[in-house]
């Protein structure tokens, strides 16, 4: 197949050369209509001007005019474009924040308000697989492109050596924090397989396609933008040991023995202890107004022959909570040149530096140290005591998180007659560094040190040939095709040292001289070190033929072949087609309709895997660990065994793939005052692999099997309305509402099983993959006479004070068989409403965002109510942070169960703690004032400025939700709210945008 494509490409090139020789001096502009947008470029243009020669009747429909065919991947999508006005006055840091609620089909989980934290997830048209672990999460994310260059992300392989999955080792900074919004031209959300087919397997979950501002000919333009403001302290109620004791005592009186009462935790038993029973003012230190600011400047300009853009920016983003912030420094350069009439050269180099101050939670620290101390007594709520703790952070402690990255490309675009050949080389390199040192004072005389260094690098080589032919004046044919080679390498080294000799030596190291007698002997710390590396390559060929008749019917067909080094040799290549059709029903005002089309596409795109384990087939790994602590040696020697803890991987594992059918219409009416784009889709992810539990006597925990099938179906729409077109008074009002309805369903499991239980999740065919698996709570047994005889919880008899759980299978035993799949962690309906009101020189923009029909597990409430288990348990969930002293849980709304009972009445996995997570939030509001200056000639040509915009923006201003805990957004990817997330910060900034 790929050979055929390859030959086809060769033939095209020959044809193109041929045509070029015949018509080398011909100067024409051609336009080609893609599915929903005008596709317009200029070939062989001699003069580059701001006016478009030739067929430019519908220029306002063209979103961006590509003067040169700059990027081989500068496709014109049937996309949803994010309103740049919306993002440019809001202090967003990550791509996820920028697209949240701003385009249909996209749902963003902003799990924590910690600036630049890796815990932000984007899903386009649902989830492609059940989210059981970090790897599934990684494999469900869309591809992110900057100017057509696919960015490499942090691979979840670091979790292989982690005991706790709180955050990945290393700086754990979101690599999508590298862009300044003032340098973004537009962000497109790509969902239709007509377009995703061109992008290929990287984008099987959809793509976010970002176009930065670029080099542009014209008079020099100097832009300076800046804002300054504060992240504001939230209003919270604090508690102290009195409230804790008052909450607990009724349980002790009702169910406890006198022995229980005398074994109250130490911090509660002494009410003269002012640390616990005194003022609860820790929040003065924990929540602080924190400055956020940004300043950036850009210079753009040059002649038609060569032009440039330079951009620099510095940003600080901060959360009010726990002294967290992110500092970012970026610099980008863009150069475009037209050395010959038929040749365009364009390039970009962009670098960024991200420094993050991370949260000071115990959970994060113990997870990093892989060590859980006794945690029955929380840190006191008193400011003075808490101060001693924060002083350590301000003092000897080291927690440096640095991420630097550089991206760039160099592209050559040659117009050869009617053909355009574009070749491009691009790279993306990022490295993360984390140095940690916890002094002895923090951990009862034991110190800890760790050093992480990791990098990801991607190199892409691509070539695209495009040929357009017009048959007379009527129909238009476009052939394009290309190949793409991508090579990825990720690597890290990580060393941990425990219990060093003193706080002066803050580096864990071993003697690395192989000849030395002290080879691998450590410097006083107990040292363990880890290294890992993965390498992946992807080669793709594709060919695309499009034909447009002058009656408005347009058809397209695409065929691609992708080879991945991560697949087994006999399944290395995957061939997939995409077909699309579009028909313009109304082109020019018929009745109240201004425009109307119908479009549909069906296609299939392969799915990439995250590492090299499948390609290896049956394999051996260094893995002798237990309890999540990595260990790979015996008697000091490295070992290998089959992956008994992970999964048996056999042969014959095919590519998994996504298949989507979508049909929709785009129409505008009332003289284009209202336009609507609506698409209905049915997306299937097939042949997904799943680790399924296997026979214990094989020694393996799981077996990797193919054959899982997940379906997402839904509808997404965007309505744009000029509610009030700008009138004589200078008043205007535009609104844009986007919405998505999505529902997922598990269609099949490997081996035709109907259900599988994995890590406390149950997957059952016919149910949603994000459903919770819970016992159904029906109240409380007030006295023992209410308990049916012989009724047990996993063999343990019920007593008065235990919960009533529904016995689904009627066998008088409550166990996992009585858990039901209920609710869903991802919303069924979500979207946003963007309003832009202008009055003369003023404007008001506000952005509402909503998500409906999903649920959240109030795990923090379960933990709080289950205080006896928590006091006695040594697990990460049992740790009490200082925020334990924040009044978050409505304890009165839960029945009073016996907390000592071994049926564990307050266990989290029951519908007692399942709550509706619907919400509507006012994400941002901006009031601005715009002035047009006198100098319209260009920077340096006259005095004065071109234009100036002053604004005030507030973010995360309001939120409405029935959820009883803090915020329904602060749940992890599978819908559990453990209370650890930092709140989404409310902030207010004032800003200026000045063009000179």
């Amino acid at each position, binding site marked *: 197949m790929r050979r055929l494509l*390859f030959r086809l490409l060769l033939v095209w090139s020959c044809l193109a*050369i041929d045509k070029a020789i015949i018509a080398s001096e011909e100067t024409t502009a051609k336009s080609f209509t893609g599915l929903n947008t005008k596709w317009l470029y200029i070939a062989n243009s001699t003069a580059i001007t701001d006016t478009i020669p030739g067929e430019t009747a519908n220029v306002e429909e063209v979103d961006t005019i590509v003067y040169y065919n700059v990027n081989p991947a500068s496709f014109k999508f049937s996309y949803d474009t994010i309103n740049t006005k919306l993002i440019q006055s809001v202090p967003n840091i990550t791509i996820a924040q920028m697209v949240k609620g701003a385009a249909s089909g996209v749902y963003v989980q902003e799990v924590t308000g910690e600036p630049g934290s890796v815990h932000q997830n984007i899903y386009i048209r649902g989830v492609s697989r059940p989210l059981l672990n970090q790897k599934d999460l990684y494999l469900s994310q869309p591809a992110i492109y900057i100017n057509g260059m696919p960015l490499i992300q942090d691979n979840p392989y670091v979790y292989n050596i982690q005991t706790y999955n709180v955050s990945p080792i290393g700086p754990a900074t979101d690599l999508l924090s590298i862009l300044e919004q003032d340098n973004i031209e537009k962000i497109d959300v790509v969902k239709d397989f007509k377009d995703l087919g061109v992008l290929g397997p990287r984008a099987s979950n959809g793509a976010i396609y970002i176009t930065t501002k670029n080099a542009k000919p014209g008079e020099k333009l100097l832009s300076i933008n800046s804002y300054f403001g504060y992240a504001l302290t939230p209003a919270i109620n604090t508690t102290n040991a009195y409230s804790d004791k008052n909450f607990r005592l009724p349980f002790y009186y009702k169910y406890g023995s006198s022995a229980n009462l005398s074994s109250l935790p130490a911090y509660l038993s002494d009410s003269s202890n002012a640390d616990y029973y005194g003022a609860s003012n820790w929040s003065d230190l924990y929540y602080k107004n924190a400055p956020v600011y940004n300043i950036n400047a850009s210079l753009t300009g040059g002649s038609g022959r060569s032009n440039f853009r330079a951009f620099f920016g510095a940003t600080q983003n901060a959360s009010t909570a726990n002294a967290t912030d992110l500092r970012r420094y970026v610099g980008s350069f863009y150069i475009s040149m037209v050395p010959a009439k038929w040749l365009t050269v364009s390039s970009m180099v962009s670098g960024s530096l991200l420094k993050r101050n991370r949260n000071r939670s115990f959970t994060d620290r113990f997870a990093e140290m892989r060590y859980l101390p006794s945690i029955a007594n929380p840190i006191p709520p008193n400011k003075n005591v808490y101060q001693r703790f924060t002083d350590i952070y301000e003092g000897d402690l080291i927690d440096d998180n640095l991420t630097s990255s550089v991206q760039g490309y160099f592209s050559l675009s040659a117009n050869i007659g009617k053909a355009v050949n574009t070749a491009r080389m691009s790279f993306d390199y990022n490295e993360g560094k984390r140095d940690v040192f916890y002094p002895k004072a923090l951990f009862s005389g034991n110190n800890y040190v760790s050093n992480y260094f990791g990098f990801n690098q991607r190199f892409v080589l691509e070539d695209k040939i495009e040929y357009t032919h017009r048959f007379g004046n009527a129909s238009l044919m476009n052939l394009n095709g290309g190949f793409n080679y991508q090579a990825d390498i990720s690597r890290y080294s990580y060393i941990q040292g425990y219990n060093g000799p003193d706080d002066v030596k803050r580096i864990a190291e071993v003697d690395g001289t192989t000849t030395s007698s002290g080879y691998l002997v450590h410097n006083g710390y107990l040292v363990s070190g880890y290294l890992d590396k*993965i390498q992946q390559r992807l*080669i793709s060929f594709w060919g695309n033929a499009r034909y447009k008749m002058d009656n408005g019917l347009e058809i397209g067909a695409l065929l691609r072949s992708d080879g991945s080094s991560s697949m087994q040799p006999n399944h290395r290549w995957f061939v997939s087609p995409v077909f699309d059709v579009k028909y313009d029903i109304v082109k020019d005002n018929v009745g109240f309709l201004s425009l109307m089309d119908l479009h549909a596409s069906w296609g299939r795109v392969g799915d990439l895997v995250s590492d090299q384990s499948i390609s290896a087939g049956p394999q051996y790994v260094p893995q002798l660990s237990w309890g999540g602590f990595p260990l790979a040696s015996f008697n000091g020697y490295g070992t290998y065994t089959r992956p*008994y803890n992970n999964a048996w991987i056999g042969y014959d594992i095919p590519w998994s793939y996504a298949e989507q059918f979508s049909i929709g219409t785009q129409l505008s009416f009332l003289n284009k005052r209202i336009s609507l784009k609506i698409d209905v889709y049915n997306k299937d992810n097939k042949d997904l692999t799943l680790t399924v539990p296997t026979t214990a006597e094989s020694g*393996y925990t799981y077996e990797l099997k193919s054959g899982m099938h997940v379906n997402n179906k839904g509808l997404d729409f965007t309505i744009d309305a000029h509610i009030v077109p700008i009138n004589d008074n200078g008043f205007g009002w535009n609104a844009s509402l986007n919405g998505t309805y999505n529902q997922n369903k598990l269609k099949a499991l490997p081996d035709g099983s109907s259900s599988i239980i994995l890590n406390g999740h149950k997957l059952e065919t016919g149910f949603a993959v994000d459903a919770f698996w819970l016992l159904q709570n029906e109240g409380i047994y007030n006295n023992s006479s209410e308990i049916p005889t012989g009724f047990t919880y996993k*063999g343990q008899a019920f007593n008065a004070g235990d919960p009533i759980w529904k016995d689904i299978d009627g066998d008088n035993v409550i166990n996992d068989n009585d858990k039901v799949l209920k609710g869903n962690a991802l919303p069924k309906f979500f979207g946003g409403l963007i309003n832009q009101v202008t009055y003369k020189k003023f404007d008001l923009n506000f952005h509402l965002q909503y998500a409906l029909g999903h649920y959240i597990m109030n795990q923090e409430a379960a933990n709080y109510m289950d205080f006896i288990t928590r006091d006695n348990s040594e697990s990460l969930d049992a740790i009490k942070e200082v925020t334990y002293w924040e009044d978050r849980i409505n304890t009165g709304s839960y029945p009073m169960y016996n907390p000592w009972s071994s049926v564990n009445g307050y266990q989290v996995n029951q519908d007692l703690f399942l709550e509706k997570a619907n919400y509507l939030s006012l994400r941002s509001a901006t009031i601005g004032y715009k002035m047009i200056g006198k100098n319209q000639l260009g920077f340096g040509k006259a005095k004065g400025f071109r234009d100036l915009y002053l604004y005030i923006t507030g973010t995360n201003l309001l939120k409405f939700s029935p959820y009883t805990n803090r915020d329904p957004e602060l749940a992890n990817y599978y819908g559990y709210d453990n209370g650890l997330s930092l709140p989404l910060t409310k902030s207010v900034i004032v800003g200026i945008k000045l063009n000179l």
Partner: protein
Amino acid sequence: MMKTVNKNFYVLVFMLLCCGVSCNKILDIEPSNTINEKNAWKTITDSRSALLGSYGLMRAALADNEANWMYGELRESAFKSVTRTDLKAVIDGKLNLPFPLLEDVSNWRKFYAVINSSFLFIEKSGQVLDSDPQYTKLTHEVDVAQMKALIALSYYYLARTWGDVPLIRQSYDGQFPKIPRSNVSAVLAYAEQLLKEAAPVLPFIYGSVNAEYFSGLYYGSSDWSGDLMTRLTAYVLLAHIAVLDGRYLDASAYLDFALANSSKSNLTTSTTSILVSATSGVFSNTNYKHILAFGMSQEKMETTPTGHIENLTLGAPFIQRTNPQIYVSAEDIATIYNEGGDERYNIDADGTVSSLFLAT
């Protein structure tokens, strides 16, 4: 201009050609963090890695959840649990209570991982013999004998803990047959048979230049004290199996052999003070006082936060834990050590307590 166009064209064609021809080669990347079948069982290092891997799996089976003590010492013992109700359930023999710990330790998978890994070694290590001349026939035979003994040890634990268990006699690599349980005596008989096959091949000591049999460095090292299956270990294990099977005379005979030959394995008896010595005691690092130990030695940088008795018994001020998870009450200690002059713990006629075990 035509020239330039042509050049561009040829460059492009060349690029495409290069790619078209060698695509599959470019995509053949050896995995860097796993070893596939093609690269395994090649050198003597591979056989060492796989051999010690099986031992390491046994260590994991016994260490996970401190299972060794859950299966043994804790059951209906004098230990008391301060706060952990799941440990209390183990101690009280209430093994059906709904605790994750009990669910975990009732899964026998980890022992079958040892069995699978050991059979894999027996079946596949012959390949190393063919490809690496450093790997001698005798070393290979000794290695295979060790794996047989390790399988026997796994079956001993399985039979002791679960009674009737499925009897697996090969690796079934890549297949997952469901095999019914065999009678406990059949399981023990199989273990005994394996040990009897292994014992004559196993050396008394590894890596010793002075040994009568199998002398010289083992895998380039002399540092194998207590880590590996020796002939002595095999006999001690045979004795254990015989006891479990109720054949006490056999047990006695096996032990007689072990005692008579203990010096060949450098095994010596220890005094009470050596038992508790922090730096040179029985329990510090690996040493010849171990008949067989699955160690987590600090010397070898294999310390772990869990898996050892210390994780259950230590508390403040030694580690950051208010109370140890289990303890033995003072009354019970007095009852257990009730002989006068017991160096471990005794109370003399004056009521004075002396003990090398306990800080008094």
